[in-house]
């Protein structure tokens, strides 16, 4: 299951959603808003997406992950809009029969998400300035 949402990510509910009798391991990764980037202080992040394409790419990542590992259930959820420090911006929950598979599958899914899903964040710094984050261009 993949989802973009403008509301709080209920990671407990997502973790419950992937638990199954045939899976002895559940790994849930949360990406949260970090306060410090080197010496700059973040107040909030604004996330935006090419929504339909982002959902399509997230679904492809789920399918790709399921091909590589014996995934029972998995969910990828990304938040959009304004998030304050410590809020959860992304959650990936995966269940597999064994823990090694669950760790690897979850790692693969979040790495691929960060690499190719069309979502962008804008840093709103404490000094009142802001900037979109485009790796390789800043």
């Amino acid at each position, binding site marked *: 299951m993949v989802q973009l949402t403008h509301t709080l990510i209920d990671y407990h509910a997502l973790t419950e959603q992937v638990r199954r009798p045939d899976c002895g391991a559940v790994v849930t990764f949360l990406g949260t808003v970090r306060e410090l980037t080197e010496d700059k202080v973040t107040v909030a992040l604004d996330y935006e997406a090419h929504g339909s394409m982002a959902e*399509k790419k997230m679904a492809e990542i789920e399918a790709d992950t399921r091909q590589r590992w014996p995934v029972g259930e998995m969910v990828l959820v990304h938040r959009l809009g304004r998030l304050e420090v410590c809020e959860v911006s992304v959650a990936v929950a995966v269940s597999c029969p064994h823990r090694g598979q669950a760790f690897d599958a979850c790692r693969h899914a979040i790495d691929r998400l960060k690499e190719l899903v*069309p*979502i*962008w964040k804008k840093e709103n710094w404490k000094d009142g300035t802001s900037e979109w984050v485009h790796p390789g261009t800043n």
Partner: protein
Amino acid sequence: MTVTVRLFARAKDIAGAEAVSLSLPESATVADVRRRLAAEHPRLNALVARSVFAVGDEFANDDWRLSPRAELAMLPPVSGG
């Protein structure tokens, strides 16, 4: 033909618009879109060079030939997560 290119993030801020329209010859490619965008919006130049493009919900490389109703998007380097 006229094609519309959706813009996101810094590109949207620079252009001051969520989308721009470009007039292109029939059988134009994504490479033509890149050139025309950079020519008509010089301030987007640096970002255009670092962006990938999408047609509909799929990545489209530079030799992708556009249809008149193609839904184009310019995707600057992503930073989700």
